[in-house]
Each structure stands twice: as C-alpha cells, then as structure tokens.
C-alpha cells in the first residue's frame, strides 16, 4: 500500500493503518531495533511502541517520507530502552559502536562550549554531504542502523580489514570536520 494511503487510514483512525504499516515496514523496523537491543522480544515491543507513537502523532502530523519518520521513532525508542536496560553494564553492539566514535568526538572544556543537538545535526548533514556515496552508506549503516562489521562487508563487497580502515578514515574526517566547525560535545 502506498504511504499516502496508509496516512489516510491513520487520519480515518482505522486500525488497518497499523497493520498496513507493519506489513510494509515491519521487517526493516524489527531489524533496526534488533541491531540496537540484540533481543528479538525487546525489539518487537519497541516496534509495537513505535506504531503506537505514529498512531498518536498522525494526525495532525503528515509524515513524509513515512519510512524515515518511522525509522527515527524506532531508533529513538530502542536507544531509550537500551539505556534503561544497560544503565549498569554495557557490552553489546551499540556500546561498541559508540566506543569506536568516542575518541573522534571533540570534547567541550566547559558546559557553555557544548553545542546544541539541533546545531550539531545541521553540521552533520553538511558533513554527510561531503562524503562519497559509498562512505556515507558505510558510516550510516554502522552508526545509524548499527549494522555489524560482518553485515556491512557483505553489503559493500569489502573485506573486514578494508572496512575497518575505511571506517577509521571516515571517523578521522569527522573529527577534523567537527573541529573546523567548532563542534564540542
């Protein structure tokens, strides 16, 4: 079913809207949530919560594109759940991805120096625009979709070593870009 048709169902407050959303995007959402939580049951609950969030926001929201809007909700709820679940101990995929990034993110020396999240997003959009399409894909599959190295190697046709070098190079580029734009976290 077409996105506009699904949104019309949400506006009509028809429960078919949720079914249509699940049928069309359920698999992709489940995968994204699982990448973060590494637990099928938790991922399923997060995806269902995401459908409920869409139900509560549409209307009045008319999301376009619907897929990206839904993915952002799934990612946000999954990371929230991850934070609660792993407050004491962090050992899995998301932590590994964050630990990879940590040394490449310029630190603020004072709280005043920290940049607002929305401004950082604007600069990140610009940074992504400077990357080649392949580098952008690799970067986003790793740090937005939280894919494992193995998944990305299959996706990109690269071996793990090449991928690792490539990701390091992108992270260095990110660090330079953030420093040049005075982004401190």
């Amino acid at each position: 079913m077409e996105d506009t048709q699904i949104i019309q169902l949400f506006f009509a407050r028809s429960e078919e809207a949720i079914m249509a959303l699940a049928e069309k995007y359920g698999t992709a959402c489940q995968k994204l949530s699982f990448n973060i939580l590494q637990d099928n049951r938790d991922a399923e609950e997060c995806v269902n919560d995401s459908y409920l969030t869409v139900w509560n926001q549409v209307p009045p929201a008319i999301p376009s594109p619907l897929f990206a809007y839904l993915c952002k909700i799934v990612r946000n709820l999954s990371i929230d759940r991850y934070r609660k679940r792993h407050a004491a101990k962090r050992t899995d995929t998301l932590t590994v991805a964050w630990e990879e990034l940590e040394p490449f993110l310029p630190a603020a020396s004072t709280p005043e120096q920290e940049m607002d999240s929305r401004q950082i997003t604007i600069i990140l959009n610009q940074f992504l625009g400077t990357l080649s399409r392949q580098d952008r894909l690799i970067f986003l599959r790793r740090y937005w979709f939280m894919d494992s190295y193995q998944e990305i190697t299959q996706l990109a046709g690269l071996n793990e070593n090449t991928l690792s070098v490539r990701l390091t190079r992108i992270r260095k580029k990110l660090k330079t870009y953030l420093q040049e734009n005075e982004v401190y976290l």
Partner: protein
Amino acid sequence: MKAEKFSDALENIDDRYILEAAGQKAAKKSVLRHWKTWGALAACLCVAAVSLLAFRQLGATQSPPSIVQTAPASDSPSGMRRFMNYNGMRYEFLGDGAIYEIPREELGEVLGTLDYDIVSDPETYSGKDLASSFALGGTVYSLNGYSPEFRLAVEWDGSYYLCESVAYTDGQLLQIDSYFSLAGFPENIQGVSIYDHAGINLLDRLPNEEIENFTELLKGSLPAELENEDYQEIGRAQQEGRSFQISFELMDGTEYRFYLIPSLRISMFGDGRYSLPQEFCDSYTDIFEGLTQPEQPMS
C-alpha cells in the same frame, strides 16, 4: 558520554540520507555484490555523462541555471509535510523546504504573508489561504517567468524557498493539460531523466528529440477513480520496481518531478493519481519495461 550525544544529533539527519542507506541495503542482492565491477563501469559512464553534459552545455543556447539549491531541508520537528495555501491552491515546498538562491530579478510581486499555522490547528487552517505548515511569517512572492498557479517563492528569515502547486485546497485535482501549459512544458524542459521510485538511482534518459512528444502525450492524463484494490496494486508496483520517478530538468536549473507506473497506466502529479492515455503507453511502455531497479527499502 560524547558518543551518546552525538548519536542523538545523528538521529535527526536529513531523511534522504536515511532512505539512501536503507535503500542501498535492500538492493544488496542485485547490485552490491558486484560493486567493484559495476563501480568501474559506473566510472566510465560518469565520464561519458559528464562529457555529454559538457557537450550539451557548450552547444546550449539558453542562459545558465538561475535558481540554485544551496542547502537541503532541515528536519521537520512536527514530521508534517511542508506545504502552504495560496489563492485556493495547495503548494508543496520543493525539497521539503530546501533553500534556494533566487536572483532578485526573478522575484515578482509580493502576494501575501504566511499568517496561519496549520501545525497548531490543522482542522481550522488546512484549507485556508496563506496558511502554512512551514516558514510561518514568510513572504510569498510570484516568480517571473512562472505562473503563480505553478510555482511561487517564499522568503523567510533571509532564505528563499520554492513552492509548487500540488492540488486545490478544496480537494480538487490539477488538470494536467492546463497545468503543463501554465508550467511552460515542454518549451522550458531541457532534459528528461528516469529514476527508480525512490528517485535516487538514475536509470535512463529520454532522447532529447522525444521530449516534446513525451510531454504532449502525458498532457492527456486524466484524474483516475481508484478503488482500494487499485491502491494496493499501486503499492505492489512501487515495491516491485514498476514505479518510476521522472524528472523534467528545467531551463532555470530546477526540476519538476512526478511518478509513472506504465504497467498500470497510472501517472501521479502533485497529490493526484491519473490515468495515462493509451497513446502514451503504446509509445513509451517499451522504455520502462527494459529498466530494472533495486528493491525499495520498505520491502
């Protein structure tokens, strides 16, 4: 942890980057396994395309593009599509609110100010003139060389945005025959490109000598009366790679984009679905049948 804050900021990056990354993953079976091989071929094609473009630029008699997109859209906090109403028509902000550089001389008269916030009260304002879901307080301008019923410009906070009509506020659809005339098609079209449904991968270009006939035949598209099954069929066609995004590359450097599903005889302009004329299908279905596209990310 800095990375957590970074991750929060990364979450709201431009939708097109998310779709690009999601779409590429879905396409891995058909395309990415042969990335290196195709990469080399793509490099050759790029050289050829650049050469062709350079050749076309050299041979072109028209003036260079006057309207240039300078920044992509920021994320929409409400998640709502960015649109506004003027004189009984609904206009979509191009690129969902991308910023354009528009030369002063291209701007016409001031038509009004976007006073009403659709986001705050969709029921009251969604059909009201000068109501908008974006750029509230912005000034609406006509554009020289364009009918206000096709495109308008909005100046807001020192940046310029382009708006394109997609329907009437009373729900009536655009009449494609007159709409194309208002838009100046085919005279101001300098190229036609065929993309996959997501509008990311360029699949083919229409030979320039076909532009006039292609456009004239498309003008015969009439509003389609669709049942639920038809919508489901359209959804299937989009997932199965039978829907195509078409770009008319205009003389001023902008694009006009719409969708075609030749196998279902459906065209989609603005917010409407239309039936393609038989003559169009007889003439152009072959072009589309030969094109394959990656699976869509939603599949």
